[in-house]
């Protein structure tokens, strides 16, 4: 039981980073990223491919972060010409494109088999200690990312982003380069997602194209909507709750007599019902975004 919960918590912490990233993009800036899993995947595969070639894990992680920053900036630039809904589908397209490349270029990515040579962290520790160490690492990353995200959101830069979210033309009319703002926010959040991807790969010591399936994006969106779009604490809470929910459904086929192959569908159904339910009836989420009072000292 403890092992199970620890495992859930570690993954939840890492997905919490993704939720913070998506919140920064969608909740703060209004960028509907339907392809978040792409940045996660860039970090994950950078780590994986590095391990294939004996490159140090630090370098692998760094490469992932840099590539993700570039990819994020590039995607943000697309916001120059595209309205929000079209940009959303463009991100979906990009994520799928990357997944296809991962699936089909066996020579680089080991294709469908995935990469199994990834170096585990904390290898010398026993299983429970290892998970605790991982939890510490995951929470540390989460804390750093949450700090970065909330600093960005609370300051003038964040104010401009939040204005872009609701009234982009007003922001433009006030002298703010909204394209540059979008590029910068993507360039900050994409690398954080990549870091989460790298760490996740080290945790499960494996990466394959199925980790880049749209389900990942969908899961993070559920976390963000359930938790509270626009609120950093909200989406973190959402991450833990939704991850727990998703993991608990793993036991569906034990409890009921649904066949194992259909059980996979039920798990997604539960998550999807949560997302749709909140969208319909409680879109502000569990911890809604609050108005910000500016204190005199800024």
């Amino acid at each position, binding site marked *: 039981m403890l092992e199970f919960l620890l495992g859930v918590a570690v993954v939840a912490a890492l997905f919490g980073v993704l939720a913070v990233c998506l919140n920064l993009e969608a909740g703060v800036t*209004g960028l*509907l990223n*339907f392809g978040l899993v792409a940045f996660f995947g860039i970090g994950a595969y950078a780590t994986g491919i590095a391990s294939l070639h004996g490159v140090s894990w630090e370098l692998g992680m760094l490469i992932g972060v840099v590539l993700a920053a570039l990819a994020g900036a590039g995607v943000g630039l*697309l916001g*120059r*010409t*595209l*309205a*929000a*809904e*079209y940009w*959303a*589908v*463009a991100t*979906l*397209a*990009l994520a*799928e*494109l990357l997944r*296809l*490349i991962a*699936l*089909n270029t066996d020579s680089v990515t080991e294709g469908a088999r995935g990469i199994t040579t990834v170096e585990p962290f904390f290898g010398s520790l026993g299983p429970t200690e290892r998970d605790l160490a991982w939890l510490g690492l995951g929470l540390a990353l989460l804390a750093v990312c949450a700090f970065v995200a909330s600093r960005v959101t609370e300051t003038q830069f964040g104010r401009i982003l939040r204005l872009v979210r609701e009234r*982009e*033309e007003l922001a433009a009319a006030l002298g703010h380069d909204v394209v540059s703002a979008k590029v910068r926010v993507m360039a900050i959040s994409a690398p954080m997602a990549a870091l989460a991807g790298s760490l996740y790969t080290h945790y499960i010591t494996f990466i394959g194209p199925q980790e880049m399936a*749209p*389900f990942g994006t*969908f899961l993070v*969106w*559920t976390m963000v*909507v359930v938790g509270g779009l626009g609120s950093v604490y909200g989406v973190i809470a959402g991450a833990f709750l939704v991850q727990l929910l998703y993991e608990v459904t793993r036991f569906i086929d034990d409890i009921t007599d*649904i*066949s194992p*192959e*259909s059980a*996979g*569908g*039920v*798990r*997604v*159904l539960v998550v*999807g*019902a949560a*997302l*749709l339910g909140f*969208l*319909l009836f409680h*879109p502000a989420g569990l911890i809604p975004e609050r108005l910000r009072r500016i204190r005199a000292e800024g």
Partner: protein
Amino acid sequence: MGEVLFDTLIDGSELALIAVGMTLVFGAVKFANIAQVEFATLGAYGTVLAGSLIGGGPLVVEAILSIVGVGLIAVGLYHLIFKRLLIRSPATAMIGSLALSILLRALIQTITGPRPKELDVPLERANDILGALVTPSQVRIIVISVVALAALMAVLRLTALGRSIRAVSANPDLAAAAGIDVRRVIDVVWLLAGLFGALGGVMYAIDNQVSLEMGFGLLLPVFAAALLGGFGSPGGAILASYLLALAESVVLRVDWGEVINTGSAYLDSSYRPAIGFVLLLLVLLIRPQGIFGREARRA
């Protein structure tokens, strides 16, 4: 040459049936419904379901039952879900449509399991037409699709209902002021989206198979077609669908090795979906307003 022609006609028809639904819905309620492609998946699975329910009737009957069913489901989904989400914003509706798309697939998986199925299509001999091997079923696909699409365009251009749909698509307030029952028009549009999407799914399933991901795999080409044709323009979506199918077919057949002088190198067919994505991205970057279209760009 003949192969390219028939590939274009078959794939283009399947795309067009689904894309036309997406673009009609966009015209009426101004959001891109990602779940549109799931109407195709539903249509195919529904046919299988109808088959097991009425036990071995002709495929046509099963298909019609399924298609009508999906049409009604589409209208129902609008009233239950999308209407409420649209009140908040088109973005919320779009997120909801992504959620619904994954939900529907999960629902199907729960009921039927993840393994693909086949429609009860008799094994046929392929005939040689213009250098391509074409089965009678494939010819039927083309004929049915073209007839259905032509009928749709006729309704849109020539009937009062069609005029109402076009009016609502252009300017709902003006249409309402002119006495058009906008809510009824929206219902009809969703019905059509469901019907045509499902028909597209059945056509696709006849030519390929019934699988969970069949709809989602078509999402990006369908979106590209609707976008290229100009969101809200059914004629544009149809034309763009065939153009995209042509492009896909040609790109797969070109010996790229010759082009870049490195010996013979064809693009692996597993990259086929990638062609759709690349085309979509190109369209988005170069001409997001499509051929006949309206604003997708920022000012």
